[in-house]
C-alpha cells in the first residue's frame, strides 16, 4: 500500500507540470489473430478484423506524461466463440509518455492494460470476457483551438475466459496490432 501511494504521488507530481484534461473520440481497425484450443482437437487459428470506436478521457501533458482511460466498442468480422458473436465492449487504462522535439507534433509511447467482454450466443454463456496488456507508439498533431489529431498503433495480447465444455474447457488467446486514429480536445 505504501509503495502504491508513493508511485501514485510520483505520477501525479510528474503529471502536474502543465497537465490538462483531455477527451477524445476515434476509431480502430485491425486484424486479430485468434488461437482456440478445443478439448481433443488440434489448435484452430484464424484472423478476424476488429473495427471499433473508442471514447477516451485523460489527464496529463501533450508533451510529457499522461494517464488515460478508454472505453471502446467494436465488432469482429468473424465468429469465434458462437454462431453469433456480436458486441465487443472493452475498457483500457494507459500510461503515456510523449516527447516534444519541436517538430510541430508530439510522438509518444504508451503502455496499459484492459478488459473486455464479447457478447456471444453459446449454450451455457452469453458473454466471454478478456484481459489484455498492450504497448504502442503514436503521435499527437495539434490542430488548434485545443484540438489535436491522435494516430497510434498498439500491440495487444489478449487472454480470453475459458469456456465451459462440462468435463474441460476451450481456451482462447489472441493478439492484434491495433491502429487508432481520432481527435482529442484538451481543456
Amino acid at each position: 500500500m505504501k509503495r502504491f501511494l508513493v508511485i501514485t504521488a510520483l505520477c501525479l507530481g510528474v503529471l502536474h507540470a502543465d497537465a490538462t484534461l483531455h477527451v477524445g473520440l476515434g476509431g480502430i481497425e485491425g486484424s486479430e489473430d485468434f488461437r482456440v484450443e478445443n478439448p481433443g482437437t488440434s489448435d484452430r487459428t484464424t484472423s478476424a478484423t476488429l473495427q471499433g470506436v473508442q471514447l477516451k478521457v485523460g489527464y496529463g501533458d501533450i508533451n510529457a506524461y499522461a494517464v488515460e482511460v478508454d472505453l471502446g466498442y467494436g465488432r469482429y468480422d468473424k465468429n469465434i466463440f458462437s454462431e453469433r458473436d456480436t458486441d465487443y465492449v472493452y475498457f483500457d487504462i494507459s500510461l503515456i509518455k510523449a516527447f516534444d522535439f519541436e517538430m510541430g507534433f508530439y510522438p509518444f509511447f504508451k503502455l496499459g492494460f484492459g478488459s473486455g467482454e464479447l457478447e456471444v450466443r453459446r449454450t451455457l454463456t452469453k458473454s466471454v470476457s478478456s484481459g489484455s496488456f498492450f504497448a504502442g507508439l503514436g503521435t499527437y498533431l495539434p490542430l488548434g483551438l485545443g484540438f489535436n489529431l491522435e494516430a497510434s498503433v498498439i500491440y495487444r495480447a489478449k487472454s480470453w475466459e475459458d469456456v465451459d465444455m462440462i468435463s474441460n474447457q476451450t481456451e482462447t488467446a489472441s493478439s492484434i496490432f491495433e491502429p487508432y486514429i481520432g481527435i482529442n480536445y484538451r481543456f
Partner: protein
Amino acid sequence: MYSRGILIAAAWLFVGCGENSNTPLAGDIASIAVEANATTFYATRNVQMNAVASYTNGVPNSNVTDFINWSESNSSIATVDIKGLVAGGSEGGDVVITGSYNQFFDSATIHVHALRSVTLSIENNETNLSQEQTLQLQALGTFDDNTTLDVTESMKWILGNAGESNATLEQNGTLYTGDANGTLDINVTRYDVNASLTVTVTP
C-alpha cells in the same frame, strides 16, 4: 450506460451491424447422452451410469460421467451417487436415472429386482462351535423374480448377545467365536429383509 450508448451510436458509423456467417472456431455443447451398463439388476448389486457429451464444430465427444448431476425418479427403488453409480433400494420396479448439466439432460430406465428374503448358513452347517474358531457365514437372498444369489457382501452383519466375549463378526460374514462360552446371535439385515442365526460356543 450513457457513454456506452454514445459509443454504440458512433460505432454504427464506423462498424455497421452485419452478422457474421462463418463457423466459429470454438465448439459448443450439443447434447448429453446417458446410458446404463445394464438395464436390469438385482437390488444388492450396482449399475454404473455413463454420460457422454457431444459437441458442435468437430470437437470429439467426451465422457462427462463424473461432471454432471445425477438423480433418480424413486429412491425407494434405487439411488444414484455423484459418480453415477446406482444402488438398489428396498423396492423393485422401474427407476429413471437422469444425468443433467444446466439445460442439458438425458435419462435411462433401469429395472430393479427387489430382495424379498434372505437365509443364513454357516460353514459345515455346524452351530455348536468351539472357542477361538473362525468360520465363514453366507447369506443367500431371494429376489422378486425367484432368483437366488449370494448376498453375503451386501448385507449388514450384526453380532448380538456377545456379552463379555471378544467374539467378532466382520461385514463379509467372517465369525470369530472368541474366548468365552455362551451363545452368539448373528443377524443380517438390509432394509426390511432380515435373517438370524444363533450359535453356541463351548470350550
